[in-house]
C-alpha cells in the first residue's frame, strides 16, 4: 500500500517537472518577446547605432551578425563535412581515429572565452588582422567545427547500410557511393545540423568580444572583412555592461526579441520541412 502511494506521488512529481521545464521555457521566450516586440521597427533594424544619444538602431550589428555567420559557415561547413565523412565512412578503429575523436570532443568542450582568447592571440595579434570581421569569422569557425562534424557524422551513419551495398555492388567506387548515394540521403540531416549550429553561433558573444570587437563600421552594411564586426549579441552585452546611451534598456529589449525571433525561425520553421523530407525518404522514423 505504502509503495503504491509513493509510486503515485513520484509519477505526479515527474509530470510536474515535465510541465515546469516547458513552462519555464515559454515564460522566458514570452517575457523577452513581450518586452522587446514593441521596440522592433524597420527603423530600429536598419538604422545606425548611437554611442551617446537615445534613439539609435542596430542596423550595423544586425548585418554583421549574419555576415559573420555566413562567412564562418562558408569555411567550416566544407571542412566539417569532410571530417564527418571520414569519421563515418573511412575511419578504422585505430589510434588515429581515437585521437581525432578525442580532439573533436575536446574542442566542443573548450569554453568559448578560451577560444576567443586563442583567436585574439593568433588572428588579432600574430596574423595582424586586428579586431575585424575576419578575425571573428576565423574564431567562430573553431566553435562551429566540432558541432558540425558531429551532426555530419551522425546524419551519415543514419543512412542504411543497404544503400551503400547496393551502390558498391553495381560497381561504383567508394567516392561515387559517398557522393551520389550516401550524401544525398544524409543531406536533410546535415542541413538541419547546420541550421541548429548557425542558431547557436548567432547568439555567441564571449568568442567575439576580443576578436570581432565591440564597435561597428561607420558605413552601413560594410562588407569589408577588415572592418570592425560587433554583432547583435555582443552589442546587447556591451550596452548592459559599459553602454552610455540613455535608452539602453529599450535597445537591449529590442535586441533580445530580435535574437529570439531569429532563433525560433532557425530552430522551428526552417527545420520542419527538412524533418518531413527525412521522414519521407525513410532516413528517420
Amino acid at each position: 500500500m505504502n509503495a503504491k502511494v509513493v509510486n503515485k506521488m513520484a509519477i505526479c512529481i515527474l509530470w510536474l517537472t515535465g510541465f515546469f521545464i516547458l513552462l519555464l521555457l515559454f515564460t522566458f521566450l514570452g517575457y523577452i518577446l513581450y518586452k522587446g516586440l514593441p521596440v522592433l521597427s524597420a527603423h530600429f533594424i536598419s538604422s545606425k547605432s548611437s554611442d551617446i544619444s537615445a534613439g539609435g538602431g542596430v542596423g550595423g550589428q544586425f548585418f554583421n551578425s549574419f555576415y559573420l555567420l555566413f562567412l564562418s559557415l562558408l569555411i567550416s561547413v566544407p571542412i566539417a563535412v569532410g571530417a564527418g565523412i571520414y569519421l563515418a565512412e573511412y575511419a578504422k578503429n585505430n589510434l588515429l581515429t581515437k585521437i581525432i575523436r578525442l580532439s573533436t570532443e575536446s574542442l566542443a568542450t573548450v569554453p568559448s572565452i578560451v577560444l576567443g582568447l586563442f583567436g585574439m592571440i593568433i588572428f588579432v595579434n600574430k596574423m595582424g588582422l586586428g579586431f575585424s570581421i575576419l578575425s571573428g569569422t576565423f574564431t567562430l569557425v573553431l566553435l562551429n567545427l566540432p558541432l558540425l562534424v558531429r551532426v555530419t557524422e551522425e546524419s551519415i551513419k543514419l543512412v542504411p547500410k543497404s544503400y551503400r551495398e547496393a551502390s558498391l555492388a553495381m560497381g561504383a567506387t567508394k567516392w561515387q557511393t559517398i557522393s551520389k548515394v550516401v550524401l544525398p540521403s544524409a543531406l536533410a540531416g546535415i542541413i538541419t545540423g547546420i541550421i541548429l549550429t548557425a542558431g547557436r553561433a548567432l547568439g555567441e558573444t564571449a568568442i567575439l568580444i576580443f576578436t570581432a570587437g565591440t564597435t561597428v563600421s561607420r558605413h552601413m552594411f560594410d562588407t569589408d572583412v577588415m572592418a570592425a564586426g560587433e554583432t547583435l549579441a555582443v552589442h546587447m552585452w556591451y550596452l548592459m555592461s559599459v553602454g552610455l546611451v540613455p535608452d539602453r534598456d529599450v535597445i537591449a529589449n529590442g535586441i533580445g526579441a530580435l535574437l529570439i525571433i531569429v532563433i525560433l525561425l532557425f530552430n522551428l520553421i526552417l527545420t520542419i520541412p527538412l524533418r518531413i523530407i527525412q521522414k519521407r525518404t525513410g532516413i528517420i522514423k
Partner: protein
Amino acid sequence: MEKGFNHQRKLIYDRYVRYLFIACAALMTIIIFSIIFFVGKQGLMTFHDVSPIEFFLTDKWAPSMNKYGALSFILGSVAVTMLAIIIGTPIGLLGAIFMSKIAPQRLRSLMRPAVDLYVAIPSVVYGYIGLTVMIPFIRNFFSVSMGYGVFVTAVILAIMILPTIISISEDALNGVPKTLEEASLALGATYWQTLYKVVVPSAAPGILTAIVLAMARAIGETMAVQMVIGNTPLLPLSLFSPTATLTSDIVIEMGNTPFGSVWGNALFLMALVLLVVSLLMILLIKRIGARRYA
C-alpha cells in the same frame, strides 16, 4: 581499353579524396593542440613574474599593485558551478525520466525541440533576464542590498545546463533494455521502484556523463555569469555578495590590458586553468564511458 583506363583514374581519384577527408579530420587535432600550445605558452609566462603559490593560493587581486592572487576567481567558479549542478541535476534528471518513460508520444515530440531551444537561447539573453528580472526579485524576496552574487548566477547556470543534463540522460535512459524494466515489474515492483532501483542505476554512466558535461558548460559560461555575478574580486563568502569567476574576470579585464603584460598573461593563465579543467572533464567522461553497467 578506354573503359579500364577511366576506371583506373577513378580509383586514383578515390584515393586522393580519402586523403582530403583525413586532412579535414586531422585539422581538429591540429586546432586543439594549437589552442593548448598558444594559450598555455601565453599563460605560463605569468610565472616569470608571479609565483604559482601567489596565483593559486592568495586572493589579493590588484594588478595596479602587482598582486595577482586568483584564488577568489577560482573559488567563485567552483562555487557557482557546484551550486548550479546541485540545483540543476535533480530537475534535469526528473525531466529526462519523464520524457523517456512517462510522457505520451505527443508530449515527448513537443519537449525535444523545447529542450533544444534552451540551448539556442543566447547566453546574453539569459544574463539579461538575470539582471533585469531575477536580481530585483532576489533583492525584494531575500531583502539583500544588491542581489548580485553566487546564488543568482547559480540559478541562471542551472537553467542553462538543463538541456545538457536532460538530453544526455534521456539518451542513456532510452538505452536501458526494456527487458530489465519488465523483469522488475513482473517481480511486483511499482513503476517508481522500477525506475529508481533498476532503470536509473543501469543508465548511471550516461547520467554521470551528462553531469560532467553540464559542469564543463557551467564553469566555462561567461556572458551570463559576468552580467549577474557582481564582478568584485572578493572571496564568495555569502550567496548574495558580489564576487567574480575566472570567466567573468577575463571578460571585464582583458579589454584594458596590453597584450603581453604580466596582467594580460595572468588572464591567459586563468583561461589556461579553464582549458585544463575542461580537457580533464573530457578524459573523465572517457573513463566513465569505459565502465559499463547492465
